[in-house]
């Protein structure tokens, strides 16, 4: 099983994700505030990036949301809007009828999510 997804969150994606998730931390939605605290610009929500990993895994398993049984990730580095994110992964093993895949998410060579492991039920 191959996991592969490319997505470019647009400039206002962090605002829509803030509304959808309820996380209005200004580092995600206010570029001026983000720069005041030493960031290059406003950054993506980590859980948005994790949702892209979840989506990529579900798609690889055939698209049924029930196929994603477990997902664990480590957040590393920062994700930014208006930059292409690539999610890639490959099968590690089959365990108790589920496929275990190792996944990473990166932007321009910078890892945002690493050591991600998903457990997928495949029909």
């Amino acid at each position: 099983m191959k996991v592969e997804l490319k997505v470019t969150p647009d400039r206002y994606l962090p605002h829509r994700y803030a509304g959808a998730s309820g996380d209005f931390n200004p580092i995600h939605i206010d570029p001026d505030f983000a720069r005041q605290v030493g960031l290059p610009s406003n950054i993506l929500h980590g859980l948005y990036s994790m949702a892209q990993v979840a989506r990529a895994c579900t798609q690889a398993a055939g698209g049924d949301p029930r196929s994603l049984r477990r997902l664990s990730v480590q957040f590393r580095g920062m994700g930014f809007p208006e930059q292409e994110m690539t999610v890639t992964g490959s099968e590690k093993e089959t365990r108790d009828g589920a496929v275990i895949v190792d996944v990473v998410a990166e932007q321009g060579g910078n890892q945002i999510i690493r050591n991600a492991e998903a457990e997928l039920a495949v029909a």
Partner: protein
Amino acid sequence: MPVNADAKGKAYPPFEYEVGKEKIREYALAVGEDNPVHFDREQARAAGFRDIPAPPMFAVVYSAGAVGPAVLDPEVGIDLRMMVHGGQEFDWGETVCAGDTITTEATVKDIYEKDGRGFYLFESVSRNQDGQEVVRAIWTNIVRGV
């Protein structure tokens, strides 16, 4: 200054969340989920769901009200200015659908120090109106310069 681990094991009041079709739509659109089962009740039922299913990561929406107060608890003592979300794990059970009422309980699972950083691990368990577990989560927050 070493981290204070006194809050380890502390439990927080349950948080109840009613799952709605339009909130699922809003969330699915924001994260780019395009499977029609998240938008169309007929297609969801045809695919064997009780009602419109939430994408798995919708767990963050119904869990936030339980986990947020734990992260902000002065007895836990996280310096929010120095905190980053270090890791996250979800272990899903029964699918969450529109119309469900999800109750989430959070606890402080562990607090420890490593390499000058404080690790604060929270566990949340969410169940639906029938008592079925829908997700179990570990939220890892890391605080620099403790």
